[in-house]
């Protein structure tokens, strides 16, 4: 690592990363990632494919070595003591492959053995029941969704302090997605910190308390999920008593007109200062005003437009 400004871990943070950089040849995958995830938090990590979500998680777990920067998980530098970090964390990769010659039970027993048999097997069976997974099925006969369930169970089976999940509901049907999210909330209630990447906005919106948005290897936004949905993007539908000059609104900073019905009704959104919009509307003959709270998905898309 080239830069190590942060010499001591912050005891309040479960994940702490500063200036993480990683390149693959000429491709810069991470360009200085700074992250702080508090203990007991559910933290969503949003970004499109290739943005650097998986690379960040794999750097945090010492699968790949960053070119620069430093990270601490649960107060431990994963490069200095990866085994201690791995003992206390559960990891679910985005892409999983298992041994096809094993059954689901055989595969999970293998993972349990790799954790020195620390997992309570009755608890593993309980998790399998909750996720409707038949442990006796050979891996080669399992669907992608059922393989994902094995991944989820192996991440949770030892009741870790920290969960790093790369797209945890990928491949699951909507009902099972909900079950997994319920499980994650349950773990969080019991004190587990959860860091999960996704490009499914609705699940991040439902589960995460805070969210970071990554684009092209850079964190472009970190905020509380609720404030992000309320703060960043506001949408208005306004009907006027008479025809007006719409340019009075469209020229405001951050405003984009979404639709227009004659000159007396418009739908627009703003990523700028809402105060200026309200002031401008106050000077106009407004008959009716509706506001919409866009979903996180819509907000997310504004970062990529």
């Amino acid at each position, binding site marked *: 690592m080239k830069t190590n400004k942060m010499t001591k871990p912050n005891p309040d943070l479960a994940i702490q990363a500063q200036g993480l950089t990683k390149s693959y040849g000429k491709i810069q995958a991470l360009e200085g990632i700074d992250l702080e995830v508090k203990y007991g938090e559910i933290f969503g990590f949003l970004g499109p494919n290739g943005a650097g979500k998986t690379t960040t998680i794999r750097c945090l777990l010492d*699968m790949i070595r960053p070119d620069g920067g430093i990270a601490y998980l649960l107060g431990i530098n994963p490069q200095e003591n990866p085994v201690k970090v791995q003992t206390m964390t559960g990891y679910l990769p985005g892409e*999983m*492959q298992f041994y096809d010659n094993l059954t689901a039970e055989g595969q999970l027993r293998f*993972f349990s053995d790799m954790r020195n048999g620390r997992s309570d097997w009755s608890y593993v069976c309980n998790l399998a029941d909750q996720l409707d997974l038949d442990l006796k099925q050979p891996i080669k006969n399992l669907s992608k969704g059922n393989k994902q369930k094995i991944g989820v169970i192996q991440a949770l089976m030892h009741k870790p302090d920290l969960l790093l999940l790369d797209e945890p509901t990928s491949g699951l049907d909507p009902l099972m997605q909900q079950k997994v999210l319920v499980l994650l909330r349950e773990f969080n209630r019991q004190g587990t910190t959860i860091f999960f990447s996704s490009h499914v906005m609705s699940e991040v919106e439902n589960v995460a308390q805070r969210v970071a948005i990554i684009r092209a290897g850079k964190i472009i936004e970190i905020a509380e999920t609720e404030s992000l949905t309320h703060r960043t993007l506001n949408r208005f539908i306004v009907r006027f008593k008479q025809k007006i000059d719409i340019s009075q609104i469209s020229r405001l900073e951050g405003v984009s007109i979404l639709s227009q019905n004659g000159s007396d009704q418009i739908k627009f959104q703003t990523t700028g200062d809402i105060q200026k919009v309200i002031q401008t509307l106050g000077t106009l003959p407004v008959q009716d005003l509706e506001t919409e709270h866009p979903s996180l998905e819509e907000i997310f898309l504004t970062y990529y437009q």
Partner: protein
Amino acid sequence: MKGLLTTLRYTFMNLRGQILGWGLGVGLYGIMIVQMFETMAAQQGQLQKMIANYPKEFLAFFGGDANSIMTPSGYLHMYAFSMLPIIISIFSILVGSGMIVSDEERGRLDLIIAHPVGRSAFFFGRFLGVVAAILTMLLIGWIGFSLLLGKSSLGVNVGQMLVPFISLFVQILFYVAITLLLSVLLPSRTLAAVVGGVIVVSSYMISSLAFMDDILMTISKIMPYHYFQTVLEVNDLNLTWLFSLLGISILMVILAWLRFLRRDIRLSGEGSWKLRFSINPKRA
């Protein structure tokens, strides 16, 4: 330590099919070879006459000559042990090149290494599992070779039969080590296996034909097969050769381990690493 033992156990268990397959294959071949000696001995005169007419290059490939063919070590060398290192090298190349990289290329290593085992414990667990598999396979083979010795006029006891297996073990270990090292250095397992195969075949051919040419003789001295010994007494073993080959194998394993400690773990679908010294004309 527990992580290492768990990895060792699983590695050994995963190889059980290959251990049985190769072990029984070598063992059955041994039974056949020992049994066949009686027939050969009965036709010794004719056989020696026939062998004397063979081109010496042909005989060299089987490591024999007309004079030594009916001695126990000459017979065993020509009909069994000259070829066993080459035959079993297929197993060595597959196991050595796949020891780490097979799981990596199939996308399994990422999740395995996320468990609290540690890269060193994982690496040596895998390696010792492979060593245990080789030893078990050779044990089954040795039992096969020894089974009918009591009824044979070969004049070799089970203890003497063990000696060529020691040299065979070191040969196999060398090929495992070199393909393991190649697999963590080269872009893909396939390339490591191909290079390993070229080394094995060229080693066999050059060492076998070395007597014909001084240059070949010089080259053969850097080939592992040159140091394979079919002797039946421990005292006849060239221990310098044996331990040098063993030492080089251990050195290659250590280099592979150091490389594995420092490298990134690939994901399935990421393709292969680029060779650091490869030239891309578009970028040049």
